[in-house]
């Protein structure tokens, strides 16, 4: 009996390993796509509820709790459309990027702590023309970079993630540097001591577009400097950066083509 359980466990391990190997050479996108489509609506709804975006509809739901389910559903649909509309409106008013080159996407999940997530799962994938390294923004602020792409969903690595890095420039002083995610904050490093950094300076991306046209776009706001670490004995100075976005309140983001 004991050895039978062990044998079965080893068998399942081998099946998992085979699946992993197959997926490495021939990505099983159709499986991902089907599963993502099934789970899209409930996950998207729950995420929005958690983000407090639909707080307006929630209070109305409280008032109308004796109403029937159809009425509640209609109300929720209306609120979702309203939020999408206002997000689109504000995006197209503020963004310096050509509005026609922006793809709106809804956030359906997250990784890491909710207040400072490391990654978002969005409802757009290869079917919508999404590719790795695409820049994700909200109102001209950097949300992150697409790191994984599935059929219908994609993963966006956020600046706080330790997998994130980007070349940036201080908008006021033109000092160059590289930002890294440190999980709790965004870290600006590799800034020459001869360059000037000031608390409150706005840091924007310098642009890292590859030959395929993908990569981080230029002039996207990463955040503002909150503290500086400078020593004359070192050749580089560093700083802490705080994003102007509250990531926990986002529900719609935009991908720059």
């Amino acid at each position: 009996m004991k050895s039978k359980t062990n044998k079965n466990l080893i068998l399942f391990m081998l099946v998992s390993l085979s699946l992993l190997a197959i997926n490495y050479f021939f990505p099983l996108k159709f499986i991902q796509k089907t599963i993502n489509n099934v789970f899209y609506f409930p996950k998207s709804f729950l995420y929005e509820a958690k983000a407090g975006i639909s707080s307006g509809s929630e209070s109305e739901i409280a008032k109308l709790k004796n109403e029937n389910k159809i009425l509640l559903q209609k109300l929720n649909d209306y609120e979702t459309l309203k939020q999408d509309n206002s997000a689109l409106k504000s995006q197209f008013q503020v963004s310096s990027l050509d509005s026609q080159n922006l793809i709106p996407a809804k956030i359906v999940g997250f990784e890491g702590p909710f207040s400072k997530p490391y990654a978002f799962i969005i409802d757009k994938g290869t079917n919508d023309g999404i590719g790795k390294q695409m820049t994700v923004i909200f109102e001209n602020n950097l949300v992150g970079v697409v790191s994984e792409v599935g059929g219908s969903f994609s993963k966006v690595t956020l600046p706080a993630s330790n997998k994130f890095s980007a070349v940036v420039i201080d908008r006021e002083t033109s000092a160059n540097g590289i930002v890294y995610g440190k999980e709790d904050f965004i870290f600006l490093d590799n800034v020459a001591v001869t360059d000037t950094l000031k608390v409150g300076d706005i840091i924007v991306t310098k642009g890292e577009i590859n030959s395929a046209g993908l990569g981080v776009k230029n002039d996207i706001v990463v955040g503002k400097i909150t503290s500086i670490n400078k020593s004359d004995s070192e050749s580089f100075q560093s700083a802490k950066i705080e994003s102007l976005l509250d990531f926990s309140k986002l529900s719609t983001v935009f991908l720059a083509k």
Partner: protein
Amino acid sequence: MNLQNLIILVLLAAFFIEGSIISFPIIFLLSIILFMLFPNNKTFITIFLISIIADSLYLRPLGISSLILFAIFLFFNLYKNIFEMKNYLLIAFSSTFFTFMYAYFFSYSTNIILHLIFFIIGLTIFYILSNKKLLW
């Protein structure tokens, strides 16, 4: 409805909660509990399928979660066979440790308080199950 089906149902519900409301590997922890209670083929097939769905939702390589889970189950099983392990404390500690490691490598929240809360819940569940002689 028997306990095994009930846990499977909770596992399915966890898909909607994990990553949308809470950043904690609930599916992973529940899979360990399911294995501790019912180490049979039905459990293995269920956990395999559920892991595939979880991998798809998080855009991980398909099969990675099930591979890790079955490796941990094999470790538990071998340890149990060699040392005749039936200590619920050890099971609770090791489950928490593996869950924390899984959370760390797959970018879930590694908030100690959150893990401590789930450890206490797990400890209580394992204690009750151990007293009822349901654990393995």
